[in-house]
């Protein structure tokens, strides 16, 4: 055994010794068709093909899939509110009042005052915390369940990706038309030429239905309702 072989053996043994034991197998999960315990974030339908498509996945899957929706009013403040416009979404047997960004939030400089046109969306929220919602409300398809969706968030209190690369942003989901909840995260950061830097959280929806997505950053809480179908 030469010195390199020995070094690698020792390094490998040290690394193996530092690894946690594997999680026990959840045999019941094998029966479910869904697969992953959580994993599968991102790259929704249009997937890795283009950054723009990925962003669209976060903000306008409904439009991509030709699903319609309508809305209510912005939800913002120190607790999830009922702000924003709502409209009944076509979700099979279930009606879902998804949130429309009406009125749209006008972001302060240096952020673009309105959401970039590419996304067919508007800013929604306040200076303390805002996101981007499709003008007709968010309608997410099967990709949100199988692959997840990127959600983007902004705040004047966020120092940017250099100062706070892992934003203290939490995103949770509560199903409104049945049992179900999730906690997403951790948050990371993103940057694009058109909207600048943003806080990013990958969200995996456990099941189709009417979901309230709620983000918290500092004292600010912002929520909206999205309809998720398995189409």
């Amino acid at each position, binding site marked *: 055994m*030469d*010195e*390199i*072989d020995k*070094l*690698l*053996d020792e*390094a*490998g043994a*040290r*690394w*193996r010794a530092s*690894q*946690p*034991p*594997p*999680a026990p*197998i*959840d*045999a*019941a*999960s*094998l*029966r479910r068709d869904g*697969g*992953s*315990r*959580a*994993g*599968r*974030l*991102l*790259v929704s339908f249009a*997937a*890795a093909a283009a*950054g723009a498509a*990925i*962003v669209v996945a976060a903000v306008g899957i409904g439009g991509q899939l030709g699903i319609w929706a309508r809305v209510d009013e912005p939800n913002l403040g120190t607790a999830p509110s009922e702000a924003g416009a709502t409209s009944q979404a076509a979700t099979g047997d279930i009606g879902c009042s998804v949130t429309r960004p009406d009125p749209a939030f006008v972001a302060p400089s240096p952020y673009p005052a309105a959401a970039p046109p590419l996304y067919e969306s508007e800013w929604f929220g306040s200076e303390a915390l805002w996101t981007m919602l499709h003008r007709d409300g968010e309608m997410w398809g099967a990709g949100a369940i199988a692959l997840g969706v*990127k959600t983007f968030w902004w705040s004047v209190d966020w120092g940017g*990706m*250099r100062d706070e*690369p892992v934003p203290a942003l939490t995103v949770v989901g509560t199903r409104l038309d049945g049992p179900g909840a999730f906690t997403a995260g951790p948050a*990371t*950061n*993103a*940057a*694009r030429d058109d909207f600048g830097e943003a806080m*990013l959280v*990958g969200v995996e929806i456990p099941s189709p239905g009417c979901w309230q997505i709620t983000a918290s950053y500092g004292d600010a809480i912002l929520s909206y309702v999205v309809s998720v179908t398995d189409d």
Partner: protein
Amino acid sequence: MGVDDASGGGPGTPTDFAAWVEPELAKMSRLAARLAPNADREDVVQEALVRAWRKRDQYDQSRGTAAAWLLAITADQARRARRRQRSFALVGEMIVPGRSSDDRVDVEAAVTRLPKRQKLAVDCFYYVGLSVAETAAVMGCSDGTVKSTLSDARKRLRLLLEVDDG
């Protein structure tokens, strides 16, 4: 019951299947951690298990051990997870704190500078602790190719680490 006890095709119930793969879980978990370091290893393993469960009828013992089959599936899932991580990078840049420097990091750092196939062989054989045959299954090549790739990797690491073998 280890996976290699099976005579062909996977067990028919989830409980039997879980018992069948359990002896290989540690290797699968380490392989996931090594090949997709920024992903959740448990997610990768779980996805691999679900995929193996769905494809259990395709397992053919004459083409290799069940352990090698499971590890190959895990490696594939890890590659998918890595691609998903890259998709994050398409729109974002994670700021990663710098690492402290010591001798252990030197070896690790040198391994990261190996060509892709050489790093994969080193990861599987030395770090995950796979046999040559299992490494070959993950790499999709012969045992001989694994051995020669490991030999090439050691030569390159010698240069990178400037080790005096005497």
